[in-house]
């Protein structure tokens, strides 16, 4: 599988980890990514706040270049993805607007290719089973809140992906990686986007609410698939904490970082050391927990195996034991000498045992039982009988 790759401006700067981990993830999954030649900025929110035609034309130039290669486009940044989808939608549905867009970009563009987000790529393009196959270091014990934000699932007329209110795709990926995805209320709540920069008085409240809800739901970290969400939750976490006068201290990860790490890649290779909120310690703790769980599982397995070996000679049910004992008793009665020689090597002593057997039915039953359950014990008992008999005889002689 080959895809055109649109990193967008964020992945070259503030979201460099997303770029590194997306490339690594593609490598792990055997996907070839071909960066769109000489791509330009999608215009993001600023363009659609300012001029509708401009906000469609800026993405259209990139899409038209990609269309010439015949490839679908992977746009990991949720904002770029959303603008690309809006442009495709308009070009397909609105002939007048399509003509105007083509005029502005001075290129033909038919929207025959389509743009996919990182989540669509992983869940629909690759599939959870294939992802599971690549997991070598499962994120066992990781308690994670999957944060989708706005643009990956809304508006559904553009994206048509997952559920608008309670999306599941990222939770499913986390489960496939071995982590526990917590159920929480803010998975598609807005992080405030550019408000964190332009109106921090409003933005930091929105950021804090998300962090707090994740914490209350029992999560130890948050996973995202959007550079803007990452920037607000990670880089601006400290200022959000300060404004709310409460410490949260929650590491934030990209979905592709966690996938690569679960596939055995070292955290720093995908840029975890570049986060603002320290994020390596928690991964170390998860790895330590995994090691502990593995050791425990191994121990349990060994114990199970030992138990199974012991149980290899299962105790006989009482009826069968009785039958066997009866048969053995018969053997003693029929041929006492032969049975005695089976229990005692010494011929003289064996002969004495044979004499005891003939006289004492109780001892015969006891020996018969022991010969079936434990031959060693039977031999010991037989020996004791002989010793006892010899002592008796000695006393009688005196």
């Amino acid at each position, binding site marked *: 599988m080959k895809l055109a790759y649109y990193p967008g*401006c964020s992945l*070259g*700067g*503030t*979201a*460099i980890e997303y770029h590194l981990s997306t490339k690594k993830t593609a490598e792990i999954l055997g996907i070839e990514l071909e960066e769109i030649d*000489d*791509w*330009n*900025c999608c*215009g*993001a*929110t*600023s*363009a*659609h*706040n*300012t*001029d*509708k*035609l*401009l906000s469609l*034309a*800026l993405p259209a*130039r990139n899409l038209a270049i990609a269309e010439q290669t015949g490839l679908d486009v992977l746009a990991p940044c949720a904002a770029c993805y959303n603008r690309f989808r809006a442009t495709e939608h308009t070009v397909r549905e609105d002939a007048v607007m399509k003509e*105007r867009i083509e*005029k*502005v*970009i*001075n290129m033909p563009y038919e929207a025959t290719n389509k743009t996919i987000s990182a989540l669509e790529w992983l869940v629909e393009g690759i599939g959870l089973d294939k992802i599971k196959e690549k997991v070598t270091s499962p994120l066992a014990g990781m308690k994670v809140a999957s944060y989708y*934000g*706005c643009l990956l699932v*809304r*508006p*559904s007329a553009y994206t048509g992906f997952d559920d*608008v*209110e309670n999306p599941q795709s990222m939770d499913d990926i986390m489960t496939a990686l071995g982590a526990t995805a917590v159920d929480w209320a803010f998975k*598609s*709540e*807005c992080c*405030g*986007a*550019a*408000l964190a*920069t*332009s*109106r921090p*008085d*409003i933005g930091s*409240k*929105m950021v804090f*609410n998300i962090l707090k809800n994740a914490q209350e739901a029992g999560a130890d970290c948050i996973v995202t698939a959007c550079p803007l969400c990452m920037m607000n939750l990670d*880089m601006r976490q400290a200022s959000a904490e300060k404004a709310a006068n409460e410490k949260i201290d929650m590491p934030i990860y990209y979905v592709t970082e966690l996938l690569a790490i679960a596939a055995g890649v070292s955290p720093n290779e995908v840029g975890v050391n*570049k986060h*603002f909120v320290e994020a390596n310690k928690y991964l170390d703790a998860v790895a330590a927990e995994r090691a502990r769980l593995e050791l425990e599982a191994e121990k349990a397995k060994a114990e199970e195996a030992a138990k199974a070996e012991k149980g290899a000679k299962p105790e006989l049910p009482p009826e069968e034991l009785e039958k066997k004992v009866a048969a053995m008793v018969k053997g003693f009665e029929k041929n006492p000498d032969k049975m005695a020689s089976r229990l005692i090597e010494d011929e003289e002593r064996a002969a004495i045992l044979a004499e005891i057997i003939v006289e004492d039915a109780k001892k015969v039953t006891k020996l018969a039982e022991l010969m079936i359950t434990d031959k060693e014990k039977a031999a010991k008992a037989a020996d004791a009988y002989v010793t006892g008999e010899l002592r008796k005889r000695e006393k009688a002689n005196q």
Partner: protein
Amino acid sequence: MILKSNLGKGEKALEKATTLIPLSKSDKVLLSKIEQEAGTDINLCYQCGKCSAGCPAGFAMDYKPREIIRLLQLDMLDKALNAESIWICATCETCSARCPRGVDIASLMDALRREALKQGRITDKKVANFNKAFLGTVKRFGRTYEPGILLYHNATTMQPFKDAGLGLPMMKRGKMEIFPGKIKGKDEVKQIFIRASELGGEE
């Protein structure tokens, strides 16, 4: 007693009352143009308030999304365009996704914002300035250049030290380019800006 206090409330409410004036012909045309650009019909709204209850930025708005639509329904276009709310809306689309009448409120906010910008009525200069700074670097280089955006934004909003503490840590992490990255087709991108504005003017 009860009657008296109720009367008091009523009198207070009357003080706030506004005389409704129908829109002029040109403003009627403008409102329907805004609706058309937003791809939505404001008369579908029956004021249930689901949009406002779910709005994550609603706490900071002077008029909640529901109230913005009500202003438009009552021909108070002027008030809607002057509202701070339209600049606080982060276009998260929660309102549009939840509206039981299918009103695309987010798109309406977007269209109102663009109209306010066109008319030079910018209630929240910080947001408008950020957008201008952002698009300025795209027009020049083809891609965004974050230090340029921040410097311009800080200078034009008179907050020179805003986010200054983040600059060095970002550079240390390789998250901020020191020089703008220019693309080969930067002139093409510049032409896109020029042609879009020309075509926009044709309307």
